[in-house]
C-alpha cells in the first residue's frame, strides 16, 4: 500500500455485502492496516458455495471466485473467526485492544447479543471508534428490519424517480446506490470520529443508518413536495429544461449514446455536426432554449438520424470534438475500449490464486506524491489467521488448537 495517508491506523471490519467491505478496502488503499473478520463457519453473503451468475468458471472453491466478493475486498488481511465461541471472542477482544476503528454490519441488536455492543467494546478499548451500519440504523421502529441496498433505494423515493416515463415500476431495475455511496459515508464518518478523538481524547460510537446516508443525496425529490406539493414524475432521460437531453440509438443493435446540449453554444456545435445549421439562425425558433423545449420530438429525431450512422464511441468523439456533451452508453465489455482509461493506466491486473491474473477496475481516486496501488488481492478465507494471531502473541500449538476446535478456519463447507 504505497499511499500512506492512513498509515498507522488499524481497522477491524466485520461486515458483508458491499458498503462496509468497500469502505475497508478504500482505507486499505490509503495505507491503513485493515483486518476483515469474516463470518465462520457460515459463509458470508458474497461467497456463494455453489456457482451463480457472478461466479468465475474454473478451479478452486466457488466462494473464492465470485465477482461480487472480489469487488469489495482488496487491500485487507483476512481472518475467519467464529465469534460465537468464547475462544473466538477472546481473539477478537485482543484485536480490539489496539484497533482504531471497528466497523460492524450486523442487523441492529445482533452485535450486542454477541457481547460486542458499544458498551462492551468501549470497556475493552476506550479510544476505539465503533461504527454500526444497519440499513435503518440502530434506533427507531425499523431497527430490526433487514434489507439490501435495493430496499433503501425504494424507501428514499429514488426508485419512484427512476424508470421509463410511461413504464411501470415493475420495469424499473433495482439498484444498489446506497452501497456505491455508503462506503464513502462510512469512510468519512470513521475519520470524523478520529478527528474528534484528537480533541476529546476518547473513542466514539457511530450509528450510521444507510437510509439516512442515502436520502440526503436527493434534495429535489423532497423539495418538489415541500416547496411545491408536487410528486416529481419519472422523466426517463429527459430534462424538462434542456433540449436535447437524451439517449439515442447508434448503428449497433441495442447500443446507445447520450447527447445533451445545455446552452446555445453547445447547440451551435451540435447543429454543425448534424447538418442543421439553419436551426441556429436567430430567426429560427430552435435557435433559443425556449423554442427548443417546444420542439423536443423533431430535434430528437434529427439527432438520432445522425447517431444511427455511427457506433457510440465514434459519434461521441465527433460530437465532443465540437464541444457537445456526448458519451457512449457503455456495456461492460466496452469499458476495455476506452483509450482514456488505458492511457491513465486505470485498470489493475491482479494475480489471485483461483482467478489467475485478471484485469479489474482500478481505484476511485489518484493521490500524489504517494500513489495508490493494489497490493493485496482479495484475500482467501482466513488467509492471514496465523500471521495475525502470531502478531497477537498466540503460539503455534494454540493456533492449531483453534483450527481443531473450529474457532478459526480457512475454508467453508460446501
Amino acid at each position: 500500500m504505497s499511499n500512506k495517508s492512513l498509515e498507522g491506523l488499524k481497522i477491524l471490519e466485520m461486515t458483508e455485502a458491499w458498503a462496509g467491505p468497500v469502505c475497508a478496502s478504500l482505507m486499505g488503499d490509503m495505507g491503513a492496516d485493515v483486518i476483515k473478520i469474516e463470518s465462520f463457519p457460515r459463509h458470508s453473503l458474497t461467497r456463494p458455495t455453489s456457482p451463480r451468475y457472478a461466479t468465475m468458471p474454473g478451479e478452486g472453491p466457488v466462494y473464492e471466485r465470485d465477482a461480487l466478493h472480489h469487488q469489495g475486498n482488496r487491500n485487507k488481511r483476512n481472518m475467519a473467526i467464529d465469534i460465537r465461541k468464547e475462544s473466538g471472542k477472546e481473539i477478537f477482544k485482543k484485536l480490539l485492544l489496539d484497533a482504531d476503528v471497528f466497523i460492524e454490519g450486523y442487523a441492529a441488536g445482533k452485535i450486542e447479543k454477541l457481547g460486542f455492543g458499544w458498551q462492551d467494546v468501549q470497556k475493552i478499548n476506550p479510544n476505539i471508534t465503533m461504527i454500526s451500519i444497519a440499513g435503518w440504523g440502530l434506533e427507531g421502529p425499523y431497527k430490526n428490519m433487514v434489507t439490501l441496498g435495493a430496499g433503501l433505494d425504494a424507501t428514499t423515493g429514488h426508485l419512484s424517480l427512476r424508470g421509463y416515463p410511461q413504464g411501470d415500476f415493475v420495469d424499473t431495475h433495482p439498484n444498489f446506490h446506497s452501497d456505491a455511496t455508503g462506503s464513502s459515508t462510512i469512510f468519512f464518518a470513521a475519520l470524523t470520529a478520529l478527528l474528534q478523538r484528537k480533541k476529546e481524547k476518547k473513542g466514539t460510537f457511530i450509528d450510521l443508518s444507510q437510509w439516512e446516508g442515502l436520502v440526503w443525496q436527493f434534495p429535489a425529490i423532497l423539495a418538489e413536495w415541500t416547496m411545491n406539493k408536487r410528486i416529481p414524475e419519472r422523466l426517463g432521460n429527459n430534462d424538462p429544461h434542456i433540449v436535447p437531453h437524451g439517449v439515442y440509438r447508434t448503428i449497433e443493435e441495442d447500443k446507445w449514446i447520450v447527447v445533451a446540449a445545455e446552452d446555445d453554444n453547445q447547440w451551435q456545435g451540435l447543429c454543425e455536426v448534424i447538418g442543421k445549421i439553419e436551426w441556429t439562425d436567430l430567426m429560427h425558433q430552435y435557435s433559443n432554449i425556449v423554442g427548443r423545449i417546444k420542439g423536443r420530438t423533431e430535434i430528437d429525431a434529427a439527432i438520432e438520424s445522425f447517431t444511427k450512422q455511427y457506433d457510440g464511441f465514434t459519434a461521441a468523439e465527433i460530437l465532443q470534438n465540437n464541444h457537445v456533451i456526448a458519451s457512449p452508453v457503455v456495456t461492460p465489455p466496452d469499458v476495455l475500449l476506452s483509450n482514456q482509461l488505458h492511457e491513465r493506466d486505470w485498470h489493475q491486473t491482479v494475480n489471485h490464486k483461483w482467478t489467475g491474473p485478471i484485469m479489474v477496475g482500478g481505484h476511485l481516486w489518484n493521490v500524489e506524491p504517494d500513489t495508490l496501488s493494489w497490493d493485496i488481492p482479495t484475500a482467501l478465507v482466513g488467509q492471514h489467521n496465523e500471521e495475525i494471531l502470531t502478531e497477537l502473541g498466540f503460539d503455534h500449538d494454540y493456533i492449531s488448537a483453534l483450527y481443531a476446535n473450529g474457532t478459526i478456519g480457512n475454508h467453508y463447507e460446501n
Partner: protein
Amino acid sequence: MTQPLNGLKIIEIGGTVSVSAAGKKFSDFGANVIKIEPPSVSDVRKIAPFPDDIFHIDKGAVHLAFDTSKRSIVIDHLTNSGKEIIQRLGKDADLIIMDIPVTEAQDLINIFKDGDNLLTNVVTITPHGMTGPYKDRVENDLTLFGWSTRSHRHSIAGREPLRYGPYAGVVQIGSTAAAVGMAAVWSKRNEGMNRLVDVSGVEALMGNVDSGFFLWAVNGALQPRSAGQSSGLYPSGAYKCKDGYMLFSAGRDPVYSRLCNAIGRPDLATDKRFTDPEEKPKNFEIFKKILEDWLATRTKYEAFDELQEQGVMCCPVLDASELENDPQSVYRKSYITRNQDGIGDITIAGPPFRMNGLYSDAWESKPAPNLSEHTTEILQEHGYGTQEIIALFRAGVTT
C-alpha cells in the same frame, strides 16, 4: 393621477452610468423603464460611495440615484436565447437605449430590423460612434473628457489638464441620448416612424456648448488656459471670504459697476485702471486686494445676500455638507430623503424640473431595484411559461 410619461415603454441595455442616467429621465416621469443588466454586473452598481464603505451590488450611491423607478432584469444579450428575449421585450417598446460595444450593438439592432424596416426606435451610445476607425476603442469617463477639449480648456497652462467631477462626462452623454431619444419617441407617436440614433460620446461632448473647439473654430483665437481667477476680465472666479469662498462673474458692466457700489467703492466703477481694457489686466492685484478686504469681514452667505441685493452675479462655493441646508434647496425640497430597503434613509436629488407646480406629482422617484428583482415578473408579462423561465435561468441566460 397620471405622470406625463405614463404609457411609454423604454428599454435600457448595458448597465453603464450613461444609459442609467438616460433611463432615469424617463422613469421618474412615469415611463415603464425596463433596465436590462448584463450577467457580468452593471458598471453603475459598482461605483462608490457605499454605506459605511461596505460594497454592495444594490447599495452604490450612483445606482441608487440613477436607477430610480425602474425594473431590473438580467439577460445575457450575447446568447441567442438572450437576444430572443430582448426581441420580445423590445418590439412593442417606444424606445431602446443601449450602451454596449459596437459589434454587440450592431447584433441587437439587427434583431429589430425587418428587412430595411426598423421595428422600434433605437439609440446607441458608444465612445466614438458606430462607424469609423475608432469605433472599437475602449474609453472611460476620464479619456472621453480628454477628447472633449474641456479638460485642456478648464485647467491651468503647463499643469495637467483636469476632468470635471467623476462621471460628469458620461452622465452628460446619457442626457444627450435621453434628449434625442425623447424626440424619437415623439416622432414615433406622430408619424409612426422609427429611427436609428447613433450617439458618439466624443461628439456629444465636443459638439455641445462650452467646448473649446467650437469657440476656437469660429474665431481661430486660442483662449489661454487661465487660472481660476481671471486677471483680464475680473472679478471672475473664486475669492476668499470670512468662512470660505465666493464665486464671481462680475467682470463686465453693468454687473461690474453694481459690484463697486455694493462694496461701497462707486469710484472704482469709473476708475480707468479697472475700466480701460488696456489697463485693467495690469491692475488685477490691486483690485483683488480691495475685494478680498471687503469679503474678509463677511461670511459667504452674508456677502451673497448683500451683493445679490445689488444685482451682482456671485455665489457662495458650497461643499457637500452644505447642499441640503441651502435655504433655496430647503424651500424647494431640492434633495429628498427616503427609506430604501436594506439601507435605511438615503438622500437623492429631487426633480430636475417641475411640471405644473413645485411639488406636483408629475415626478415620482421610486426606489432603485435590486439586481434582477423583476426578472421573473417581466418574463411572465411577456408570455414566458413557468418552466421556460426556469430553463432560461438554468442556462444562465437570465439570473
